[in-house]
């Protein structure tokens, strides 16, 4: 059996970016087709991953491990569980769609844009399968670079402010993580995550490490109150950058929580779970209201991302509360699964929402809600997709947006009905800001004459939107295959929650 599948997945897009880059600005079409080829190949390889991964088998599969930095015992260690597989396949799927989405839109240095996208994709895949803390850290930091370039070169007018804010914000958090990792290293003399998970730590140590990790990952998610880089970054980012940022990069934060906080500092995690739960509820309610009054479409969807990611963090940490306080492992599974599904679903829904905004922006070159109105009159097919994704964004059953939120709310109720009450508020406020946006953008008479000149979506755009739609609907109508894929891994995570390390 070929056992370098994961390496292939990481390096295929990263190395594939080189010929794309070499194609140069003189041959933009070559660069486009090459990058599409690489993205499709990566997606196909990731499908092999789906086949090779055995949901019933051991937690970490397709293990690769090579000594990397011998003097520190750092390994180039890769492996996946069901959650990683799901995230990787989502990443490669979105990877194709951002390449196709940018096809004619990016006219300025398309080869560099495409290459940056491919590198970003490879690095993200790497983050999702690293089993060595230092390798994870290196990749975690490295993804900032292509994103920095994407926003900095192809971004909007305030891109310098946005990139700096984005870079420094996330970099600031990572420093704390590095310190925590160094501390762990001097205790365990390894960066291997499995070994770190078994390392006994006093509560005092755990608490310090917990907050160090929390700062790093909370910024990435992002959680209230360290979320303000996200709206700015989204507003300035090109469409593809926004899509990858919302769909995949945010998941790195919650994925990090799963891989670091849960196994390494479970007691501190349980002790401080209430903080995360409260912040998640604040994200749902408070951010919901903030989203309501945004005048920029991208900002609105960016805020709605923060609110939806609140369900991921809520689901993960409600599982802590359920396991530790009630011993209710079964319901904890529901909460944890809900969080995982919400990660995947949000990838598709937010990616699709940003694509829709990009489609309109390409035509009207404004993101201000007030400039639109009556778009449905000239773009009925676009309207169909937009309403579908808006409904997914407000968690309508039958779309993927419902599944995760439903599970998390069910689990929250068992932990504490008040938590469920605040979480379920998303039903109202989520529908409020999303459908009000739809009302102002899509419905009504055309008031702006430029709207009347907007053209219906092209075949290329239809392909992108239809692909997102297929994913959103498939997950919403039949989530069981995804649940099954992640079931064993989620059960393993929940077992870890119960382990006392002190």
């Amino acid at each position: 059996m070929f056992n370098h599948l994961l390496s292939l997945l990481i390096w295929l897009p990263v190395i594939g970016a080189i010929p794309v880059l070499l194609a140069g600005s003189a041959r933009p079409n070559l660069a486009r087709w090459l990058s599409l080829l690489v993205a499709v190949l990566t997606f196909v390889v990731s499908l092999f991953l789906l086949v090779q991964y055995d949901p019933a088998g051991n937690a970490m599969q397709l293990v690769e491990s090579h000594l990397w930095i011998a003097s520190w015992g750092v390994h180039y260690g890769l492996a996946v569980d069901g959650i990683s597989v799901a995230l990787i396949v989502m990443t490669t799927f979105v990877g194709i769609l951002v390449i196709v989405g940018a096809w004619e839109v990016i006219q300025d240095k398309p080869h560099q844009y495409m290459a940056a996208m491919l590198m970003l994709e490879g690095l993200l895949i790497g983050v999702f399968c690293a089993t060595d803390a230092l390798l994870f850290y290196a990749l975690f930091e490295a993804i900032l670079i292509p994103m920095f370039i994407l926003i900095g070169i192809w971004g909007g007018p305030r891109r310098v402010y946005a990139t700096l804010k984005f870079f420094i914000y996330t970099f600031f958090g990572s420093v704390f993580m590095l310190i925590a990792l160094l501390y762990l290293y001097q205790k365990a003399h390894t960066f291997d995550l499995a070994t770190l998970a078994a390392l006994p730590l006093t509560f005092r140590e755990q608490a310090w490490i917990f907050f160090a990790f929390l700062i790093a990952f909370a910024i990435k998610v992002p959680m209230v109150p360290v979320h303000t880089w996200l709206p700015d970054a989204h507003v300035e980012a090109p469409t593809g950058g926004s899509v990858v940022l919302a769909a995949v990069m945010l998941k790195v934060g919650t994925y990090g929580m799963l891989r670091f906080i849960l196994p390494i500092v479970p007691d501190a995690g349980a002790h401080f779970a209430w903080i995360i739960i409260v912040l998640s509820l604040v994200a749902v309610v408070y951010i919901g209201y903030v989203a309501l009054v945004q005048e920029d479409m991208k900002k609105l969807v960016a805020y709605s991302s923060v609110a939806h990611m609140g369900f991921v963090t809520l689901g993960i940490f409600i599982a802590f509360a359920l396991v530790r306080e009630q011993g209710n492992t079964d319901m904890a599974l529901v909460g944890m699964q809900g969080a995982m599904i919400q990660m995947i679903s949000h990838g598709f829904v937010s990616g699709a929402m940003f694509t829709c905004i990009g489609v309109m922006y390409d035509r009207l070159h404004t993101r201000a809600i007030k400039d639109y109105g009556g778009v449905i009159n000239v773009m009925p097919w676009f309207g169909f997709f937009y309403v579908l994704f808006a409904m997914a964004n407000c968690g309508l059953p039958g779309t993927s947006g419902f599944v995760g939120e439903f599970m998390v709310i069910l689990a929250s109720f068992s932990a504490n009905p008040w938590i469920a009450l605040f979480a379920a508020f998303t039903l109202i406020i989520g529908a409020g800001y999303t459908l009000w946006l739809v009302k102002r953008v899509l419905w009504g008479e055309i008031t702006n004459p430029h709207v009347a000149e907007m053209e219906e979506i092209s075949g290329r755009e239809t392909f992108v939107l239809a692909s997102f739609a297929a994913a959103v609907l498939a997950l919403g109508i039949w989530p069981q295959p995804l649940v099954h894929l992640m079931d064993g891994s989620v059960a393993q995570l929940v077992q870890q929650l119960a382990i006392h390390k002190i």
Partner: protein
Amino acid sequence: MQLSTSILLTIALAPLVGCLLAGFFARFIGRAGSHSVTILGLLVSCALSFYVLYQLTLGGAAEYNQNLYTWFQIGPFNASVGFMVDRLTAMMLVVVSFVSLLVHVYTIGYMRDDPGYTRFFSYISLFTFSMFMLVMSNNFMQLFFGWEAVGLVSYLLIGFWYKRPTAIFANLKAFLVNRVGDFGFLLGIAAVLYFLGTLDYATAFNAAPGLVGKTLQITAHTQWDAATVICICLFVGAMGKSAQVPLHVWLPDSMEGPTPISALIHAATMVTAGIFMVARMSPLFELSSTALSFVLVMGATTALFTGLIGIVQNDIKRVIAYSTLSQLGYMTVALGVSMYSGAVFHLMTHAFFKALLFLGAGSVIIAMHHEQDMRYMGGLRKYMPITWITMWIGSLALVAIPFTSGFYSKDAIIEAVGESHRWGAHYAYFCVMAGALVTGLYTFRQMYLTFHGKERFTVADHHGHGHDGHDDHGHHEPGVLAHAPKESPWVVTLPLVLLAIPSLLVGFFTVGPMLFGNWFGNAIHVEEANDVLAELGHEFHGATAMALHGFTQLPFLLVVIAFVTCTYIYLFNPALAGRIKSALKPLWTVLDRKYWVDNVYFALFARGGVMLGRVFWKAGETTVIDGAMVNGSVGLVHRIAATTRRLQSGYLYHYAFAMILGLILLLGGYWFIGSVPVGQ
């Protein structure tokens, strides 16, 4: 004998296939193709629904309850998509598919000139599919799926004419108000899973008796009864969907949608989903008399107070909309006194006569070239006799004239409330009784204003004006028609006739088994102590006797009073209406302003929400987080940098001075340390 899965699947999926074909392939199959496929789909569903009903009643088929596929399985928790088909479901299937089929046919005539013709057919078929999934569900997850899906289609259809500002305001409002209900509903489902450990109906209902004595910790010192919490939460969902006070505000505005969907969705089927749901959950509701009292009071309030608003409306559709609210209140009252089968029975009869009234109103609207204001109608009976007669049949059923279907269902509810000893039953009895008078007043007023008396419109005699359609809606002068009104085409009148028949007859034939004959079997569960129908059953001696008895009762007297009053005012003394209005000006204003509920909600929730959002955004995001924390720390770094930068001024003498200073400090330090005996 077992019902076959493939038949049930066909019932559900046939409209979906029609929806997809009409929605995505309209360009290839055309307008006629679109209405043909959707009608064909509905025809199949309707025929099979009748077959299923036949099998369950006379064919001796057992109840069907099976899962189709697993939606998720996490640990011991399972959510599936599956069907539960018993007589309650079968009755709903028949009602939904029958009314939906007729509405499909009717739409051919009503939407003839609309550019969104195929889209409309796609939507109403999607609605029918969603409604089937809702009533056929065998678990709470799928119930919620259907519940929200019908809400989505309702949203799309209210805003069908998406250029109208009022329509897109109304659909947003409808969706959001429904979401408030769904919020409670979802918490109810979560509570069911928490206490009963399952989302499956049958398992949950079997485990329901175990709820007794269980409580939910609300605060450190407060415990609430588990069954009460579950039932009130679920009922909040029903209040949204079935438009009960205080979540009723969306239904009158939903009249912005085309009339066929007002008949199908906002009268006959979707709005009764809440009633159906509570009847389905009867094993749970029976455990909490507190919750049932809550249901009773809410229903009674809705029945009377929304009906009153109907009296002052001038828009023909809005009168019927308020009437629907009021009738939904009657059904809810029936639920509140544990008379679930009575509620469902009224649901069925109401579906027929209310769909008839709406479609009749639609027929009038076509004839009036999309004028809906009754002040510009009058005397239409001679132009459109079929519409006139069928609407009278519907109206008689609505006001519950003995022998009509509406009589059997409504009179039974009033009687049952009188028998009930539940807390709130006295108030409810007053409301439903007074409601009978109110129903008569708004119904007869509407019929007279529309069909009788003098014509209050004129026909412009210029020609070549173009055909009637939606294009000229709102452009013409009120009360001036381009052509004389005429009877609608057969695709419109045929559904009216086909609905008039059950409006008259279905009650007579079904009242015995449905109300007093335990026809629903295990589908509905009533505790013996609560069984008001059993009490009434002792006095029931057949449908004829019941109707004859009805002539001697107070409700009939009230209807006669209403009839006489309206006849006098609107046929013989039209000026009187205006004088009454000015004499009762304050009361009229209260009703005309709809008790100011809309204004309060809009100010409080819509404006208030946006205001709160602004405060959060400006104060929280911009000032505190970004201003003080993020850019504040950046500013701090700047200031520190700016201060330290001064040290590196670039002037040689500064550096020389610093060097000398450093040397002095260094030497001085050595001298100081050296003078202290370290480690000696």
